């Protein structure tokens, strides 16, 4: 096991059940600090549950440890797109935990939020209503809100699903910058190719942890077959296509 200072995130025997249904069973892993880790798995594998258990937002058995302050990006569908708020207001929400009760965001918070909007390519949309932004712009705004939290560990739930390619590139560029600054990232995704391209470490999940390791170790037919079962199609022994039903795509 690594030294505590080198670890960004750790789970030890993490299990979650909803009523009688098991969602996550005895999951143990460690993500080194300043690592971009991806969580793969079919629909219903427990990816979102894992993130929420790590954040302590769900009752769970076992233990988890986060190396510092967490920041979170929920799935696009979790957010109310019709809410009367502009992009700047959404990013400012990331400052709330720092402010505590009663205090409102001040000038310094606004300045920081505008810098972040610039970093995610939305400087000109600060006053645009959130609901009128494109799905890619909305997702960039939510990533911006996570940056405003200034967390040490970023947990992102399918930040690239249903997002146009330019927005994906902006988001991945920003996340890579965060990793270079020493932050630890854990991102769920359905896109195996993209995960292999951008992640240093992959966790393959299907209720239990099927595999964990760098992409070249994880992307083997027997490993993916154990996680995805009949959803996996192998072509020539090299290419894996997964039936991604895009069940989480933004409305």
């Amino acid at each position, binding site marked *: 096991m690594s030294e505590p200072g080198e670890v960004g995130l750790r789970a030890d025997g993490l299990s979650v059940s909803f009523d009688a249904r098991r969602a996550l069973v005895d999951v143990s892993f460690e993500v080194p600090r300043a690592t971009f880790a991806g969580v793969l798995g079919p629909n219903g594998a427990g990816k979102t549950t894992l993130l929420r258990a790590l954040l302590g937002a769900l009752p769970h058995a076992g233990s988890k440890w986060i190396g510092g302050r967490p920041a979170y990006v929920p799935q696009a569908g*979790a957010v109310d797109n*019709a809410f009367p708020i502009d992009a700047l*207001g959404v990013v400012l929400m990331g400052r709330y935990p720092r402010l505590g009760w009663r205090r409102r965001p001040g000038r310094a918070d606004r300045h920081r939020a505008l810098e972040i909007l610039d970093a995610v390519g939305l400087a000109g949309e600060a006053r645009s209503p959130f609901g009128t932004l494109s799905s890619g712009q909305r997702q960039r705004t939510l990533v911006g809100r996570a940056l405003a939290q200034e967390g040490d560990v970023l947990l992102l739930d399918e930040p690239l699903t249903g997002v146009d390619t330019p927005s994906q590139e902006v988001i991945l560029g920003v996340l890579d910058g965060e990793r270079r600054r020493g932050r630890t990232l854990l991102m769920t995704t359905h896109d195996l190719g993209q995960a292999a391209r951008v992640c240093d470490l992959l966790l393959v999940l299907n209720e239990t942890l099927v595999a964990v390791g760098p992409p070249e170790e994880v992307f083997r037919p027997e490993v993916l077959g154990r996680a995805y079962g009949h959803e996996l199609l192998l072509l020539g022994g090299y290419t894996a296509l997964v039936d991604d039903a895009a069940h989480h795509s933004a409305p």
Partner: protein
Amino acid sequence: MRRAFAEAILCGTASGALGCFVLVRRLAFLGESVAHTVVLGAVLALIFGLPVGAGAALLAVITALLTAAIAGDRRFSPDTATGILLPSLFGAGVALLALAGGYRGRLEDLLFGSILGVSDADVLLALGVGLAVVAALALAGKELVLVAFDRPTAQALGYRVALLDALLLGLVALTVVVGLRAVGSLLVAGLLLGPPVAARVLCRTFWPMTATAGALGAGSGVVGLYVTWYLDIGAGPAIVLVVASVFLLALLGRTFAGRGQEGGRNAPAIR
């Protein structure tokens, strides 16, 4: 008459501001339900000689708890729970009042309000509730907004979401109890939701919408009382009709002035 104006301004401001949370949390049907079921609490309080406001507040809390309990069963939605509770508890209140006898005229007061007959104690209660709403929004307003916009993130950031829900429902209950005296059970939902819907048409972001809704609620109360004075119609219906007119004017104004802008075709739907 001065007491009636004070009651209308306090009640309209609190209802308008708090109603914005009811609107964005999609609790409109629950607000309507609480507005009706409090009649049972008020009737029970009348029969047992207790303060009507206390009985109504108790039933408001019970309604919220029962709604949560029924909706906790995955086979039923919160709307279903409300659809069951509203008619049964409201019906029980009306039936009980008929059985008890001796309260002639009180049913009309409960249904349509009696703002022209408010006492100093009623105005003080409205002031207290108004201050409670302002204090709660000053203390936890941004957290309530976060829960409304993105509940999973509020949970993930460690906020006690259930506590914030209870705070909001408690404030709604208190506001409905005050509104019951002003415009009555049948019309209080209009005061709770009309100004926020009109403000949503006029405003792009939440806090200006809240301030606008509070001002529209207070203004509608004052104008409604003047309408009552000159037209000799019931104060409750007059106030709610003014609220409805404000909404229509806002909608028409926005449609003609803001075509193609936010609030026009591109605006998200109002729930």
